[in-house]
């Protein structure tokens, strides 16, 4: 069991599922299944956040990102007519660009190959924790984000409501 620690198994499972679901988002023909795969990608990512020690960010990711935003896409996708897939001439170029970007990022972050992940959870309400830093140092961006979410809600309702028929 010491050869296969539980963290390694959890990481492998969720990183593979994240990659598979991101491929499904891009490649699946149906919009609804793509949106559903995006939800599962968000959940896999949240598990990786928790593994990194950011438990509260993982909860936030599941409740706000998956629970609200991705579900919004999922239910909106049912409104659209499915567009039949067409041949895209840029497929080979896109694969080349994607591989180039992955190789560049891997090369840039190569020095982090030595940094071992210590099993520490990032505190929420203690000194230096997320909540205190957010309220004490980052209260203005927090306010702006809250206003942006409220504005989006109003904008979404205004744009998506049924038009009234004038007789």
């Amino acid at each position, binding site marked *: 069991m010491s050869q296969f620690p539980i963290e390694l198994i959890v990481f492998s499972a969720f990183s593979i599922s994240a990659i598979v679901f991101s491929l499904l988002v891009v490649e699946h023909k149906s919009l609804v299944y793509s949106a559903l795969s995006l939800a599962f990608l*968000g959940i896999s990512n949240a598990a*990786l956040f928790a593994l990194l*020690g950011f438990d509260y960010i993982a909860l936030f990711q599941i409740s706000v990102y998956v629970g609200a935003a991705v579900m*919004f896409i999922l239910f*909106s*996708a049912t409104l659209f007519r499915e567009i039949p897939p067409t041949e*895209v001439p840029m497929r080979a170029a896109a694969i080349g660009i994607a591989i180039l970007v992955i190789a560049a990022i891997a090369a840039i972050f190569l020095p*982090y190959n*030595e940094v071992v992940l210590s099993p520490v959870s990032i505190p929420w309400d203690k000194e230096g924790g997320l909540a205190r830093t957010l309220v004490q140092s980052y209260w203005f961006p927090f306010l702006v984000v809250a206003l*942006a979410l409220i504005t989006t809600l109003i904008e979404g309702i205004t744009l998506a409501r049924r038009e009234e028929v004038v007789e």
Partner: protein
Amino acid sequence: MLVIYSFLITSAVIFGIGIYGFITRRNMLKMLMSAEVMFNGALLALLALSRASMVPAKGGILALIAISLAASEIGVMVSLAILIFRIKRTIDVYELRRHRG
């Protein structure tokens, strides 16, 4: 024993898949979802790098703000797609370019 680099490689692969989808798709919603895949990869890289830094809480706060802004962006983009589909009856970006003006 887990290293930060394995998280960064995972995030790079997710980001690359998002780039591939964004370039090849012509459906507006598919392009938005590919951009969201890229966002998920970038978010994982941000948290992995902040975990390796001296003050990981600051990276966590950046992630909180980024997730909230991504939710706002999804709301705006999907509402715009609904509006465009109602007017033009398509969300194919090639078709929309043809009908512009």
